[in-house]
């Protein structure tokens, strides 16, 4: 697919927010899905070569705009940050499975750093379904705490933590979360592996359902290359292989075999 860059906003030195116009994409995108984005503007250049996966952060059905929220980590994201308003950009259709949208439940969203991206789209949908939502948002430091004003409209409560205490509570996001776990019916999480594992354990221990979004390295994004395998336990307790790009990126947090997960 090809879209037009509507905006490519620098939020701070680490994070950018890109709005892209493509009606087809918007009509088909489900909450929790991702897309593979071509970070080069010119197809005659072969470095970088692979497309990069990003979660769908928001969609606007009226304008046909959707957005990605991205963190600068390497050459693909550096290149993305150079796209100007009005440029054409190439990407896949919406890929992967999606979050289950609960109805009229008390839900917790636990996000770590850039893991906040798909939770925004999710919060909007849950709000629509009359859920009561708490957002737990953890980061290294103040710069990682972005998008709060946008979340405020859709979530009922926001708890912020930073490792260095520069914003919100000092410490890990799992600390306030575990204190309130009993209150929630359903938990959604996206962020670093360690955080997802901790959140999942907390949920297992209190018997709460938890869905996590995993960020495995991907080449095709379509289920063909077998580069993004995650091991989960099936109902009989056997370890089975799942392709993060098609059977994921959303998994039942209680089933994931965390040693098999690679991406920090």
């Amino acid at each position, binding site marked *: 697919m090809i879209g037009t860059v509507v905006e490519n906003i620098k939020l701070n030195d680490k994070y950018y927010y890109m709005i892209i116009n493509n009606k087809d994409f918007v009509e088909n995108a489900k909450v929790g899905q991702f897309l593979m984005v071509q970070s080069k503007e010119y197809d005659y250049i072969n470095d970088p*070569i692979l497309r990069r996966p990003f979660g769908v952060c928001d969609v606007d059905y009226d304008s046909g705009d959707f957005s990605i929220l991205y963190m600068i980590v390497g050459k693909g994201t550096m290149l993305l940050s150079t796209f100007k308003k009005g440029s054409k950009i190439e990407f896949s259709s919406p890929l992967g499975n999606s979050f289950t949208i609960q109805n009229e439940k008390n839900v917790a969203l636990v996000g770590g750093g850039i893991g906040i991206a798909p939770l925004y789209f999710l919060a909007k949908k849950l709000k629509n379904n009359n859920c009561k939502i708490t957002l737990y948002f953890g980061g290294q430091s103040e710069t990682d705490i972005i998008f709060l004003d946008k979340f405020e409209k859709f979530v009922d409560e926001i708890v912020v933590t930073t490792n260095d205490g520069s914003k919100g509570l000092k410490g890990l996001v799992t600390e306030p979360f575990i204190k309130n776990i009993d209150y929630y019916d359903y938990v959604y999480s996206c962020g670093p592996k360690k955080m997802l594992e901790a959140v999942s354990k907390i949920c297992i221990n209190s018997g709460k359902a938890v869905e996590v979004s995993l960020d495995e390295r991907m080449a*095709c994004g379509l289920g063909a*290359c077998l580069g993004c395998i995650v091991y989960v336990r099936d109902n009989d307790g056997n370890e089975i292989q799942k392709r993060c790009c*098609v059977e994921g990126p959303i998994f039942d947090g209680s089933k994931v075999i965390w040693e*098999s997960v690679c991406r920090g």
Partner: protein
Amino acid sequence: MIESLKINLCGVEFKNPIITASGTFGYGLEYANHIDLNKLGGISVKGISLKEVKGNPMPRIMETSAGMLNAIGLQNVGVERFIKEKLPALRKYDTKIIVNFWGKTLEEYIEVARVLDGEDVDMLEMNISCPNIKEGGIAFGTDPKMTYEVVYNCKKVMKNKPLIVKLSPNVTNIKVFGKVAEEAGADAISAINTLLGMAININTRKPFLSNITGGLSGPAIKPVAIRMVYELYKTIKIPIVGIGGIMNYRDVIEFYLAGASAVQVGTANFVDPEIPIKIIDELDNYLKCNNIRNISELTGKVEI
């Protein structure tokens, strides 16, 4: 049907010479929702073995300059499940099916070849060049005697299908392997598989791939692939399927001039799944503009 692109490879009629490369296109079905499989000349499916194989631990892939490393470890469902679960659905598409296969031992190679030879597939492609597994794979592709053994013995049990032998570029002299495979009865050669490479994460100090080393593919390796196809063309008489870093129709023409009679597109499928289809359209246009009746006229036509 584009007349200028129709080719005959070892008796099999392809509507065009664009085949998707093994391991980069799954069992074909994964791409069915993304592109029109009916347009492809052929599909070479992920390397099939006798029993199901789980592959290597993760991470399995890493990007490099103009290329990528992979160490999937030939994960596949095994020949039986492939035939039952994948082949019938795949057969619904109007494209040629090439089954890439391998074994851990000579006996396994022979058994998979025997089984597939009796199935509704168009060609077999023997992979003796996978750098990512401990047993089998590249060991058969880097020792001429073993290459001869495995090709000869598989051909003996194959009564119906043509056999393509896929060579490893990780050798001092690829001509030797082309020659040996031809003598042992191969109907065609495909070249090249991936170059053995490695990348280290300087932050963690660990290799990026759990398997330590992996196979390098993509435009980075195209010059090596072109050279090997050229060397093979001068050495053997059976047709050559050119593989390595093809991104557009110009690359296909380059492989043809070097000596290819068909090509496979690999890593490019990840870059943009539309690439094989785009190539087909562009090739048609190129041949028209250059008054070339059929692409086969270009095979080996590099002017020295």
